[in-house]
């Protein structure tokens, strides 16, 4: 049985039902321990003082914000190529989660930079890219809401997602070109050397990232199940009406 069988709506509902509670439990456990650990049991940074504690929510949310759109891109491609309903419904489910994570990343990023930049919002290229990404999320969600027919909506939003991705990357580099940038370099993944983030900060951060990823998966799975139920309800109603 190819993996596509697992993406069949009924089977998807089947295997996600037992998985979901565990996923929720794990996600909450990871996030709570990570935040408590990072908030209470790690020292202040010698330079930034206590604002370094914001790293535990800014970095994971920023990562999810970008990877959620990337996931939507992949699932939209799968919909266009293989016409798999669960795939496009997963993209529709992931959009609000990605948008929320972008809001968190934006707010925490602005607040984190505030002491250094002296203002609540500095037009820093990376933060600006997140703002543009947020607009893409809004457009994507609005297009879904504007179309009644489910299949047309799926096709059009998938095309928008593909084109949007190209322009999101373009906007990212345009933003860097436009303002040389005040943002602290990518502190976590600089060629894998964790020394840029002191050892003591690194572990809670990793745990928090894991927690956010699990939370993202739990939310997307739950919301996808919701979309499948709604599609099934309207399909049954349509068949009832036409009988």
């Amino acid at each position, binding site marked *: 049985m190819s993996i596509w069988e697992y993406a069949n709506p009924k089977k998807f509902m089947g295997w996600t039902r037992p998985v979901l509670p565990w996923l929720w439990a794990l996600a909450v456990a990871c996030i709570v321990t990570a935040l408590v650990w990072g908030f209470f049991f790690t020292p202040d940074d010698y330079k930034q003082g206590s604002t370094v504690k914001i790293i535990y929510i800014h970095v994971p949310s920023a990562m999810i914000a970008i990877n959620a759109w990337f996931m939507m891109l992949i699932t939209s491609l799968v919909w266009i190529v293989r016409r798999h309903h669960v795939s496009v419904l997963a993209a529709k489910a992931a959009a609000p989660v990605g948008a929320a994570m972008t809001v968190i990343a934006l707010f925490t990023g602005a607040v984190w930079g505030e002491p250094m930049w002296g203002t609540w919002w500095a037009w820093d290229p990376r933060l600006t890219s997140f703002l543009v990404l947020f607009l893409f999320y809004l457009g994507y969600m609005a297009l879904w809401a504007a179309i009644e027919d489910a299949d047309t909506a799926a096709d059009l939003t998938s095309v928008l997602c593909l084109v949007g991705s190209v322009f999101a990357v373009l906007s990212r580099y345009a933003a860097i070109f436009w303002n040389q940038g005040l943002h602290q370099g990518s502190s976590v993944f600089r060629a894998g050397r964790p020394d840029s983030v002191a050892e003591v900060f690194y572990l809670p951060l990793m745990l928090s990232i894991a927690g956010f990823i699990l939370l993202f998966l739990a939310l997307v799975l739950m919301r996808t199940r919701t979309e499948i139920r709604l599609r099934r309800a309207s399909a049954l109603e349509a068949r009832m009406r036409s*009988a």
Partner: protein
Amino acid sequence: MHLAVTDLACARGGLPVLTGVSFRLEAGQALILRGPNGVGKTTLLRTLAGLQPAMAGEVDFPADEGAYASHADGVKLTLSVTENLAFWAAVHGRQLDDAALAAFDLTGLRDRMAGTLSAGQKRRLGLARLAVIGRKVLFLDEPTVSLDRAAVGLFADFLRDQHLAQGGIAVIATHIDLGLEAPELDLTPYRAAPDAAGGSDEAFL
């Protein structure tokens, strides 16, 4: 020149509407589609014309010889009669000859703005497009709506003498009698069962 439809199934808004439609038309033949409103005449014609993909089955006729005409006849109100027709002729790479205007009694209106025409005249202009583009296989959805008796006669003559006589094919959905000796196909028996397979939301049932 032929139109072969084998076991065609088409859907509207994700719901199967017609299944198992099969017929074959040779050059010079026409087919009248009958059936109550909503049975799927328009959906079938749009599927045959290629405007929407068929759910199942085959539609076979010479590539880009098909033309579709429906209530919305694509007439631009701010263009004159000849400009409208000349445009459609140019799009299909043909010249606008006066025969088409004469066939639909539009020669008198040649320079009138389409916006100033009556509903019947506008309808005749829409149908004259079919004469201008020179396509062999026509899919016509209620072509004679808002036409008076004389205009219906004009259209029937055009179909019989100019289109079918020169080896054209036509599938027409209409409620009135066009005076063509063409076979009729009642679509009621092909209506899809409510839970027929193939609808785009079938995976959710």
